[in-house]
């Protein structure tokens, strides 16, 4: 257990958005142009 000292205060933090990244959306492969 790391020594972080004695408690000083207690805080309740409710962020508007949780700081957890969301997975990037899968990228659809670009369609090959049809040969002329």
């Amino acid at each position: 257990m790391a020594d972080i000292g004695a408690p000083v205060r207690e805080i309740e933090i409710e962020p508007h958005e949780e700081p957890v990244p969301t997975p990037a959306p899968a990228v659809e492969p670009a369609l090959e142009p049809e040969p002329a």
Partner: protein
Amino acid sequence: MSPEHGAEPLVGWRVWRVVGDSLRAAVWGTEWPPLARFEADCLDLRPAAHASPGRGCDCGVYAFKRREDAELLAREKVDPKDVLALGRVSLWGRVIETERGFRAERAYPYDLLLLGGTEQLARKLRNRYAVDVSLGLAPRPLHTGAG
């Protein structure tokens, strides 16, 4: 101690052990899941089950206020075969601030400095956890020799 309220996550410093391409707590070895918040859980059943971090308990997600303290822990925990990650961590939910750090209910890495790893491993961690990962030198152990 009545809680204050805030809307911005706090930021502290931590050390993780890197096992494969996963982050594990340096002290307890618990795995930190990618792309999901890490939630504290108290394993001490003596005072009865309670929400973590408990006021009369030592549970919670630990972080230091100062980078130097996290670096010192990295040097204490270093083993030549270990790859470590030093970094900042976002903390939210119920947080108990202490003299030198925090015990929090929820956390997620903010950025990482890989100590002793490779660029390939840094890229894997960057992709899995979706945070900035840079490369640093392996920490110098505090204790060397057989004594």
